[in-house]
């Protein structure tokens, strides 16, 4: 009885928090996207004085938008998959093999995260130019995004690999399962949440990354962050930025739900029964 009451209180509290957490920011973004240029929406009004879909049609007709959407939504999933692939072997080593210097390696993996912004924007891209990768702009940006997101994918997958149960692996081997079957039965259940998290995070990192995509891609390749930063920079057109963010949110939410369904980030202990 006590538990049910507690759950209800928590649910209520969460609903209130969610309103502040989500409804307010997203609601405001929706209202911002509907502001008509004839009259600005100053902070003291609850609703925009003049509303219309002008911003939406205007942004949609902007020739760069469709290209940016296509490019970003092609780039981000590929970067996520690439990063995942590159990270798997290293995460396996860090998660399951106790070698000398492992803690140091786990720290060294974070190097891309600690590199300051302008160093990435100027020196890393200059390195990419030096390596001649800019002849294949899309591939260069893809590669750069995958490498820069490696800290996320490696660390996330490491945590997952650490949770794989040795007795499962042993049992599978003892039962004569081949390498692939062992992987599917023993590793995959524990890895699923990690794979899901890794794909999601790298996807988001890639779709938000501005500096490299701009320096290497411009003028041929336009991504969403380029348009977003343009709108929030000097020219400061908040309604346009709101439209862009909302255009981004819907596909992102759908992708996240699909991913979650596909990987069914289920409770790994469901596969393990009740034995510790």
């Amino acid at each position, binding site marked *: 009885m006590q538990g049910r009451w507690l759950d209800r209180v928590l649910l209520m509290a969460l609903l209130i928090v969610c309103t502040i957490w989500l409804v307010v920011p997203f609601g*405001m973004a929706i209202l911002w996207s509907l502001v008509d240029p004839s009259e600005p929406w100053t902070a003291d009004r609850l609703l925009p004085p003049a509303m219309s879909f002008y911003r939406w049609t205007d942004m949609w007709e902007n020739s760069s938008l469709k290209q940016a959407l296509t490019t970003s939504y092609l780039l981000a999933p590929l970067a996520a998959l690439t990063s995942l692939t590159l990270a798997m072997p290293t995460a396996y080593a860090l998660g399951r093999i106790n070698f000398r210097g492992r803690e140091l390696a786990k720290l060294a993996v974070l190097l891309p995260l600690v590199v300051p*912004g302008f160093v990435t924007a100027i020196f890393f891209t200059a390195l990419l130019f030096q390596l001649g990768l800019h002849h294949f702009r899309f591939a260069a940006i893809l590669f750069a995004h995958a490498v820069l997101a490696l800290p996320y994918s490696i660390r996330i997958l490491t945590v997952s690999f650490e949770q794989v149960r040795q007795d499962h692996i042993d049992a599978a081997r003892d039962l004569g399962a081949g390498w692939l079957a062992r992987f599917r039965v023993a590793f995959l259940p524990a890895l699923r949440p990690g794979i899901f998290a890794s794909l999601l995070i790298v996807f988001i990192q890639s779709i938000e990354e501005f500096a490299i995509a701009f320096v290497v891609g411009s003028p041929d390749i336009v991504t969403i962050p380029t348009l977003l930063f343009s709108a929030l920079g000097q020219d400061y057109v908040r309604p346009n930025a709101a439209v862009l963010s909302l255009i981004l949110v819907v596909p992102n939410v759908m992708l996240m739900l699909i991913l979650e369904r596909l990987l069914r980030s289920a409770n790994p202990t469901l596969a393990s029964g009740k034995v510790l």
Partner: protein
Amino acid sequence: MTSRPWFVVPLLLAPGLGLILLLIGSVVYIAIAQSFGGFNITGTTEGYSLAFWQDTLDRRVYWRAVRYSLQVGVVSALLSVALAYPLALWLRKPFPGAAFIGAILKAPLLVHGLVAAFLYVNVIAYHGIFNQFMQAIGIWAEPRRLQNDPGAIGVYILQAWKNMPFALLLLTGSVQSISDDVLDAARDLGARAWARFWRVVLPLTTSGLQAAAVIIFIGALADFSFQVIAGPTNRMSMSQLMVFFKDRGDWHEAAVVGVTLMILAIAGAAVLTAFLQLLGRRRWRG
């Protein structure tokens, strides 16, 4: 455990760590060289010297930026993780609506940080919705200037809003791997909820906790846009200082601040990892 040939571990590390060290290592080397004058993006090199380091370390603004950035980094990391833990535990066992709640909590991941900052500033604007609400229910007599508040509350709120879902994502996986038996046994032995958390949950989820806290710490340490849009105007963050030097053409000083950022990030990450490891191993006395 079967013995492995010596080359297996390096081979496994090559595509991940190897690429990182090769590419990013070169870039880091260039940045360090720039800070010592051994390299200059604008062409003219004066040769290695400690002058830029000495000069920058002499500046008051540098040390204040170091302190401020460290504070923001640590508080953001601990705050995000502290908020995420209870939620991860609550969502551990599937119940109706858990997936929906999980999705709602993860939604801020999908909103670009820059956009979030501008929305926040709009909500707390002088005549904005929050001020109007507080006046309407009678708590405040007149509007209060909340933008760029000196306590950096705005930055912490934005960091927590953006990073808590990430911590939740990592901790959910960790927490779900804890078997019910262990928690049941602990409860049967008389451990209250808090003790169950400290002695059972925390030690078993240390790895996920470390990964989340460290990554959030590094990101918050190097924060630029939240600070510039919503942060206190009487403080500069390290990234802000770095961009300040760079825009003036003081590339060497900018590199010094950049290298400092890198050192602080790695050192801070190591300290945070060790601290959380200790926390996970603490023996509860009495």
